[in-house]
């Protein structure tokens, strides 16, 4: 598996898109920090960008890589290699190179800004960790979609739909449910609803860590009670890990049954 991972990783590291992605974050980080001068505001703006953009890039890149490396995959399949290790290696190659672009792209300007001495380092680390989680989650989901659809156009369509659903439509539906049932106690429902969408979960985690939950009103207080504690934090991370593990398991399951 590590050999495949190595080749996928270096293959991606040499592709133009990894540099574009890296340069984008580098530029974003520099602009936000040196034109803004307020670190916590910069982190909030970054959060808003990361929460939407990272899943989108993870999905598109994952689908694109899978379809583009079909020949490579077929070449590997004829070699004495186990199927799960081929696909796991490719998946980790994509997810790691994307995470690296994100972490280095944002990390470098922040280090130059003097982040290591400031108090915002924990907020910032949480931002990068959730960003990396979102990359792993959405790349795995994208691989699932691509493996189940031979037709590239269909695969891309489903991938975009998935992103659209989790990033935008889910929130709308969630909000509508809350309004429709506003006469009932909704703390638990909204807590569970947040847990079930990795994007919402990441957003809530960061917002609460930034201590601006006062903006969230009564629900915010309930959330703060839950997510603010170490128990809530652990549960949230377990949920994020589950969001990575379940799609990866399906990749492994599917890889054993697919024809090439």
């Amino acid at each position, binding site marked *: 598996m590590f050999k495949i991972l190595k080749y996928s990783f270096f293959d991606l590291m040499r592709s133009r898109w990894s540099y574009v992605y890296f340069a984008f974050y580098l530029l974003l980080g520099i602009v936000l920090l040196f034109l803004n001068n307020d670190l916590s505001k910069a982190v909030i703006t970054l959060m808003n960008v990361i929460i939407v953009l990272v899943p989108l890039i993870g999905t598109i890149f994952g689908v694109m890589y899978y379809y583009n490396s079909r020949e490579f995959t077929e070449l590997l*399949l*004829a070699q004495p290699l186990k199927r799960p290790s081929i696909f796991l290696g490719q998946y980790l190659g994509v997810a790691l190179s994307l995470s690296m672009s994100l972490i280095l792209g944002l990390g470098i300007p922040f280090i130059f800004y003097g982040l290591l001495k400031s108090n915002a380092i924990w907020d910032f680390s949480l931002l990068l960790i959730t960003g990396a989680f979102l990359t792993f989650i959405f790349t795995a989901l994208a691989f699932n979609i691509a493996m189940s659809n031979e037709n590239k156009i269909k695969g891309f369509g489903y991938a975009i739909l998935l992103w659209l659903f989790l990033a935008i439509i889910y929130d709308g539906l969630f909000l509508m449910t809350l309004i429709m049932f506003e006469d009932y106690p909704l703390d638990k429902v909204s807590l569970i609803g947040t847990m079930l969408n990795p994007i919402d979960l990441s957003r809530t985690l960061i917002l609460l860590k930034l201590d601006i939950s006062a903006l969230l009103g009564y629900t915010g207080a309930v959330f703060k009670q839950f997510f603010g504690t170490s128990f809530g934090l652990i549960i949230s991370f377990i949920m994020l890990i589950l969001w990575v593990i379940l799609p990866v398991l399906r990749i492994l399951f599917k890889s054993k049954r697919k024809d090439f």
Partner: protein
Amino acid sequence: MVSIQGLHKKFGKNKVLSGLDLEIEEGGIFAVLGPNGSGKTTLIKSILGMVIPNKGEISVLGKNIKNSSKYRNKIDYLPQIANFPSNLKVKELIKMIKDLRGKTAEDESLIKLFKLEPFLNKKLNTLSGGTKQKVNIVLTFMFDSPLIILDEPTTGLDPISLIRLKTLIQTEKSKGKTILITSHIMSFVEEVSDEIVFLLEGNIYFKGSISELKQMTSQPDFEHAIASILTTNHV
């Protein structure tokens, strides 16, 4: 060498192989023939484990291949369409496959044989179809495995390379290896193969030598013998 019992494979509603039995003995060159869509590539990919059969058993070198990957160490496979990761150089691709399968010293002599030296530092997507096929051949023959599977090996090759390929196949045969070939070029098949396996609608229609085939169809030459099978079966 390879033994297949009751192999069934469907792709959706399309039944490709229906209960195929095949026994391939050790040593010699076997040609798998048949009209388009008769299941040649599916058969080969089943042996390689790239296609997973619905029913049936396949064993290679006496071992059932189900859920196994190590047996592929004993097979050299030349895929039908030479598509490679496009942003790798030829040299890097050869190095990568060597890294994945283990050391070999054969690659340099093969590169010389097919005159590939000027292309070693070029990226694979800039090569012509025939040159890609030569790289493909080098990748296949650089390992010393007892079973060699060639899916349409002649595609895109110029006459000189074709002659080199034929000599290469004969040298491998003289080492006692088993070679499976599919091809639509009948003259090539007639020249190299010892035995014919003719597939029709997902099953074996004929297995035997070329002279037996000519006798059976009472045709003077090989090409017409194949054509007569196809016309009598309305393909």
